[in-house]
């Protein structure tokens, strides 16, 4: 069975989206949902489904296994480097996320990217844990 890594995207869903929040008073948006506004300090936050497409503001590669509680292979034996980026989703919010592409030669500042829900790892119960990542639109 497939399960989401956390309560951060709509799932199951034919058209999954990241779940953020927006302040009803000052319109500041966050990802994921939070209860209080980081700009005006108000408590009038409501859930907001985020745009799926955006542009790559900046990026790097994760070339070594992160420490536990990293859910991938933290021992390094089967670790595959992955890309990480900051993605601007229209004029709503920027989201930090994994990228499906980790080759620096194929990543460009300002390139168009799109949300994907991708298999990440299989947990102890045999369930396939799904995570979110952004993919260059060219590679669709």
């Amino acid at each position, binding site marked *: 069975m497939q399960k989401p890594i*956390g309560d951060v995207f709509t799932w199951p869903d034919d058209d999954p989206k990241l779940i953020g929040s927006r302040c009803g008073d000052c319109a500041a948006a966050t990802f994921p949902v939070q209860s209080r506004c980081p*700009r005006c300090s108000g408590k009038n936050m409501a859930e907001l489904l985020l745009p799926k497409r955006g542009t790559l503001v900046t*990026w*790097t590669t*994760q*070339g070594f296994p992160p420490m536990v509680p*990293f859910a991938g292979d933290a021992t390094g034996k089967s670790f595959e480097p992955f890309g990480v980026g*900051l993605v*601007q989703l229209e004029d709503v919010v920027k989201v930090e996320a994994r990228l499906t592409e980790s080759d620096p030669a194929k990543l460009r500042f300002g390139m168009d990217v799109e949300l994907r829900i991708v298999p990440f790892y299989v947990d102890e119960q045999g369930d396939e844990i799904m995570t979110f990542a952004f993919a260059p639109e060219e590679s669709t």
Partner: protein
Amino acid sequence: MNDVAIIGVGLHPFGRFGDKSAFEMGADAVELALTDAGLPWSDVQCAFGGAWEVAQTDPLTSLLGLSGIPFTNVFNACATAASSIAQAANAIRSGAFETAVAVGMDKHPRGSFKVDPTLMNMPTWYAENGQYVTTKFFGMKINKYMHDHGISSETLAKVAAKNYRNGSRNPNAFRRKPISEEEILASPMLNHPLTAYMFCAPDEGAAALVMCRADIAHRYTDTPIYVRAAEVRTRNYGAYEVNTSWAAIDEDVSPTVYASRAAYEKAGIGPEDVDVIQLQDTDAGAEVIHMAENGFCADGEQEKLVADGATEIGGPLPVNTDGGLIANGEPIGASGLRQIHELVLQLRGQAGERQVEGTPRVGYAQVYGAPGTAAATILSR
């Protein structure tokens, strides 16, 4: 408001020290600072201590003397030591105390720092997903900075090589062997464009300062070094910093810029007046960015400044004369105190092989850490 003087500095070497505890290293550093000041522990009226790997720092008093003084624990990640200094300076500035000690110590296990995202108010999935990694933030920040301002990987390698070279002149440094730019560029890519030898590593060590009200400093020393400003700032809305899953569309500058501006204003000193500089070089890219964020150059000028050797010990903008974090490693509680230790030696003319010529008058130190906490400290003779 009283002026504040540093009258003693002490440092336990940074590196790896077997079974020696963080407390033993901390006590050594305080003892060295007290000896330097000529002040007995019994005359210290208050203390501020920082560390990550111990529960509290005030058990140090069982080694230094159970004198009953207020001893406050400070923790602000990589800005911990600078925050201890700011608190100690404020304790004297306010008139509440005449003397104070700031101390920091740590004994980190090997490798990157331990991570439990909920301790930083981040969701568990953020770490499970492989995003709770401070080094990847630094990779993302310098990658964009290089793209926007024309900085090359060779410049990053030159910065790291300079810091290893300075470390080789520092008997207290962790890394004391020069490493060539070629080796630095060829070391494993950890977070593009940052290679392994461009990063500092967590290690062990301790450092301490003794401060007093400026008007009594001459009882203890002929060369008091004055704390002109010690400012700590956190993120503003719009900044994209370490350990965050989102950023606002409207951009703001990093907390370093706010701390730096506030420090210059408090001190009545500008970047053009600074003679010797300590910057947070978690990685070589951070040193490059922090040169501009602290007002020492415009964005992009680092490429030529570094190529011309401006940031070398003999250059007009000497940065990280003791090797910085890259050569000393980062025992978090002590790292910012190491910076001040070096500045005090430089301003006293006691930095030996690393001494900046022309008797520097003004020193500047900056730290930056998760989740976006920065401090700037300005000292002068």
